[in-house]
C-alpha cells in the first residue's frame, strides 16, 4: 500500500493537472495489475461500502490514545475529516513499520473480510494495524475502512493517465471504464489492452456536457448555426438498447433501469443497437413536474409499481449516440437529429426534446425569461455541426440557465467547513424575519471569495453570542443575497420551506439586518412557483 499512499500524496501535493496525470500514469505503468485495478476503483470515486462504522473507529481511537470524546470532537472541528483526525491523533502511538503489503492484498485479504465480523473481532484485527503503518498509509486505510476515500482527480484525468499508460485513445479507455466492472488484475490488463476486448454490451458512452454561457448570447454568431432546446430539470441518462436488453444509466454511471420500468418497456420498441442520451423527467399532462416529484421515484427501491402511477415519468431524448450498432457520435448533430426523429416518437414515454423555433436571439432571450412558467431551467444551445464529445469541452454546447431566485437573508449561525475549508468557519445558516425573529431559511457554503471567507471568519470569532459545540450563533449583522434554483414546501424545516441549491451571490454590506427579507416574502415566492 506504500506505493498507493505515495500516489495519493503526489496527487494531493500539486495543483497542476499535468503533474497529477503524470503521477497516475507512472503508477499505472509500474504497479502490479491487481493493485492498479483497485487504484482505478478508488481514483474513479468508487467506494467499498462502509465496512466499519465510524463510531467504532472513534471508540478504538479513544481506547488507543486515552483521549476523551469531546477532545476528539474538537480535533475533528479543526481537521474537518474524520479519518484524517484519527490518523493524526494516532501519531501518539509508536509506529514500527513492517514490510509493505500490496494494496490488493490489503483490500481483499484484510479489509473486505472485516465485513460481517462483530465489532470486538474487528477491533482485534484492526488495532494492531495502526502500529504497522506510517501516517500516509494509516490515513489511506482509515479512508478505505470508512468508505470515504476520495481523491482530488476527476474521472477525465484518470482516463487521461490510463490512456497515457496504455498508449490508447482516451475515448477507448473511457468507454471501457463505463458501467459495471470488478477491480481484478485481469480486468486492469484488459483495460489497457491494445486489442478490442469483448466490451460489456450494456455499457454507455461517456456523457458530453454543456458549459454555462457567460458571454452575451450574440457572441455565438449566427442564430441559424444553432439548435436550441429547453433545459429540462431531471436526471440526465443514457438508454442503451443492445443484444435484446435495455439498460438505463444515470450520469453518475448508476444503473437505474429498475427504477423506471415504464421507460425500459418503451425502449424495447427501439431497434437493437441504439443508444440514446436524454433526461428522465417526472411528467404529467404534457408538462414537467418539479424535481422534488422525481426525487420520490429515485429514493424508492420498493413499491415501484405504486410510484409509477403516482409520479409518471418520461425519457426526453436529446441525442442518439449509436444507431444500428454503429458509434455515430462524430456525425454532425444535424444528422443525428434526423435519426432521432426517425427512431423516437415525438410524444409518449419515450419522446423527443423538441427544437425551439424562436427565430432570433432576441426572441430566445424573451422565451428564456418564461422558463419558470414552462417548468424548465432555461435553454440549451448546441451547434448544428457539433459532434458528441467527451466530458465538458467548451465551444459547441452551452447551457443558458435562468437567473436564480434571490432573497436577502441574515447570517445567524456558522460552523467550520470540512475538507479544504477545515478550521475556517465557512458553513453558514441564514435567517429571514418572522414576527421580529430570525427563522433559518437556508444553509449555504459557496459563493464567497477566499478573502471574504477570511474576513467573515475573523468577524464571526469576535462576534459569537453562543456556542453549541462547533456551531456558533453570531450577532445578526451581516446580510447576504442568496440565490437558489427551486423552492418547495417542507415539513422538515422550521420555516416550512426548503430551497434547492442555495448559495451566496453577494455580501450585502450596503444593507442592515433589519432590511433583510421576511418569511412572508419567501412564502410569496413559493406561491409564485406553484
Amino acid at each position: 500500500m506504500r506505493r498507493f499512499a505515495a500516489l495519493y500524496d503526489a496527487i494531493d501535493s500539486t495543483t497542476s493537472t499535468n503533474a497529477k496525470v503524470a503521477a497516475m500514469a507512472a503508477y499505472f505503468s509500474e504497479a502490479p495489475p491487481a493493485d492498479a485495478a483497485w487504484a482505478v476503483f478508488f481514483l474513479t470515486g468508487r467506494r467499498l461500502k462502509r465496512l466499519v462504522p465510524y463510531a467504532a473507529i472513534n471508540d478504538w481511537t479513544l481506547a488507543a490514545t486515552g483521549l476523551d470524546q469531546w477532545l476528539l470532537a474538537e480535533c475533528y472541528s479543526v481537521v474537518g475529516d474524520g479519518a484524517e483526525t484519527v490518523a493524526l491523533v494516532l501519531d501518539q502511538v509508536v509506529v514500527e513499520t513492517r514490510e509493505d503489503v500490496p494494496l490488493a492484498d490489503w483490500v481483499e485479504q484484510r479489509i473486505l473480510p472485516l465485513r460481517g465480523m462483530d465489532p470486538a473481532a474487528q477491533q482485534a484485527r484492526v488495532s494492531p494495524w495502526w502500529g504497522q503503518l506510517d501516517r500516509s498509509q494509516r490515513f489511506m486505510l482509515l479512508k478505505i475502512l470508512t468508505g470515504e476515500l476520495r481523491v482530488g482527480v476527476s474521472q477525465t484525468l484518470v482516463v487521461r493517465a490510463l490512456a497515457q499508460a496504455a498508449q490508447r485513445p482516451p475515448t477507448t479507455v473511457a468507454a471501457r471504464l463505463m458501467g459495471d466492472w470488478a477491480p481484478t488484475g485481469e480486468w486492469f490488463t484488459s483495460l489497457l489492452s491494445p486489442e478490442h476486448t469483448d466490451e460489456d454490451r450494456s455499457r454507455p458512452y461517456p456523457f458530453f456536457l454543456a458549459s454555462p454561457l457567460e458571454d452575451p448570447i450574440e457572441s455565438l454568431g449566427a442564430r441559424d448555426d444553432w439548435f436550441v432546446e429547453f433545459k429540462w430539470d431531471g436526471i440526465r441518462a443514457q438508454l442503451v438498447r443492445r443484444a435484446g436488453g435495455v439498460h438505463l444509466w444515470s450520469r453518475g454511471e448508476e444503473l437505474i433501469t429498475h427504477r423506471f420500468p415504464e421507460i425500459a418497456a418503451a425502449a424495447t420498441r427501439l431497434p437493437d443497437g441504439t443508444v440514446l442520451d436524454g433526461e428522465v423527467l417526472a411528467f404529467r399532462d404534457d408538462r414537467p413536474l418539479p424535481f422534488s416529484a422525481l426525487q420520490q421515484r429515485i429514493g424508492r427501491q420498493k413499491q415501484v409499481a405504486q410510484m409509477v402511477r403516482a409520479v409518471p415519468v418520461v425519457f426526453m431524448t436529446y441525442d442518439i449516440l449509436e444507431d444500428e450498432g454503429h458509434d455515430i457520435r462524430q456525425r454532425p448533430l444535424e444528422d443525428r437529429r434526423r435519426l432521432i426523429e426517425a427512431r423516437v416518437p415525438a410524444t409518449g414515454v419515450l419522446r423527443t426534446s423538441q427544437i425551439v423555433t424562436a427565430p432570433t436571439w432576441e426572441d430566445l432571450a424573451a422565451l428564456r425569461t418564461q422558463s419558470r412558467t414552462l417548468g424548465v431551467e432555461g435553454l440549451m444551445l448546441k451547434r448544428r455541426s457539433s459532434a458528441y464529445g467527451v466530458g465538458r469541452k467548451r465551444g459547441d454546447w452551452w447551457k443558458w440557465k435562468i437567473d436564480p431566485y434571490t432573497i436577502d437573508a441574515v447570517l445567524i449561525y456558522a460552523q467550520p467547513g470540512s475538507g479544504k475549508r477545515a478550521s475556517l468557519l465557512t458553513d453558514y445558516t441564514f435567517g429571514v424575519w418572522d414576527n421580529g425573529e430570525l427563522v433559518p431559511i437556508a444553509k449555504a457554503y459557496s459563493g464567497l471569495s477566499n478573502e471574504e471567507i477570511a474576513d467573515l471568519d475573523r468577524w464571526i470569532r469576535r462576534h459569537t453570542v453562543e456556542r453549541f459545540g462547533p456551531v456558533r450563533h453570531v450577532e445578526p449583522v451581516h446580510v447576504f443575497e442568496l440565490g437558489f434554483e427551486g423552492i418547495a414546501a417542507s415539513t422538515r424545516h422550521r420555516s416550512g420551506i426548503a430551497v434547492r441549491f442555495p448559495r451566496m451571490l453577494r455580501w450585502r454590506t450596503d444593507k442592515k439586518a433589519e432590511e433583510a427579507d421576511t418569511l412572508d416574502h419567501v412564502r410569496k415566492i413559493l406561491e409564485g412557483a406553484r
Partner: protein
Amino acid sequence: MITHAHGDHARAGSASYLCATPCAGLLRRRFGADARIEAIDYGQAVTLGGVRLSFHPAGHVLGSAQIRIESSLGVTVVAGDYKRAADSTCAPFEVVPCDTFITESTFGLPIYRWDETAAIIDDIGGWWRSNADAGRTSVMFCYTIGKAQRLLAELMRVTDRPIYVHGMMLGMIDAYRDAGVAMLPVAPVIERAGATRRGKSSAPSFAGELVLAPLSARGTPWMRRLGDVSDAFASGLMRVRGVRRQRGFDRGFVLSDHADWPALLRTIDETGASRVLATHGHAEPLARYLSERGLDSGVIRTAWEGEPTGD
C-alpha cells in the same frame, strides 16, 4: 514588556518597551530609531511597580522570552510563544518554576505533534531537488521573523548554496546575523522584471533555486519573475491537510516555532504551576483538558483570535 518581536506580540505606539537583550535589535528594526527600547539580559531582574521582573529564554525566535513576575502573591510566568525543539537561531527554552503559568495554546490539540526537524529539512531538500530536476523554482513562504532564519540555519545541513530571498526579509536576516546566528548566504531576488516580461533569453532564471518569501508576496506581480514555480508554506498549520489545500499550496512543511501538544503538556508539568491560563489558538480545549486532570486552569482572551501568526 515584550515577549518577542512578532506583530501579534509587539505593537508600535507604546511610550517605552522592555525586552530581553537579543530581542532589542529586532524591535529597533520594527519600530525605528525613535522608539524607546530598553533591554535586560536573560535572567537579570528589575523591580518595577513593586514586582520583580526577569526575562527567560522561550526558544520561539531570536530574543523571545518568558516573563517571570514575582510579587507577594507568588510567581507568575507569562510564556509568550515558545517551543521545546532545538533551534540554533535562538536560546533554548528554560523551564521556570512558578505558581501561575500563562501558556500559549496555538497548537493546543492532540492532532499537533511535530516530526524531527532533520526529517522535515530532508523533505524540503527532496522537494527542492525534484523541482530543480523539473526546471522549476522552489518558493517557500514563511514568516519574516524566525522561520526564515531558522530555515536558513537548518538548510546548512543539506546545502551550502546561497538562497534567494524576498527583499522584505533582508532586514531581519541582517539582524539575526548581527546577533551572531550562523545561516546560509542569501541573495535578494533581483528586480529585472522588464527583461523577464519581454521573454528575452537573457532574462534571469531562478529555475532550480530556492526562494524564501513572506506570505504577503504570494500572488503579487513579484512572483512572475520566478518563472514556473512550486510553492510551499512552512508552518505548524500545514499539519492539517484541509488547511494546506484551502490555501492552495503545492506542499506544506510542518515546521513550527510553537510547542506541539506533547510539548505543551510536558512544559506545564515541568513548571510545577498550580494554576495554568491558556491563550491564543486552542485555549479552551487545553484549559478544559487540564481542568479535567485536576489542574486549576482557565483561558485568557486575546485580540488575536483566529489564525495564529508568526508561525
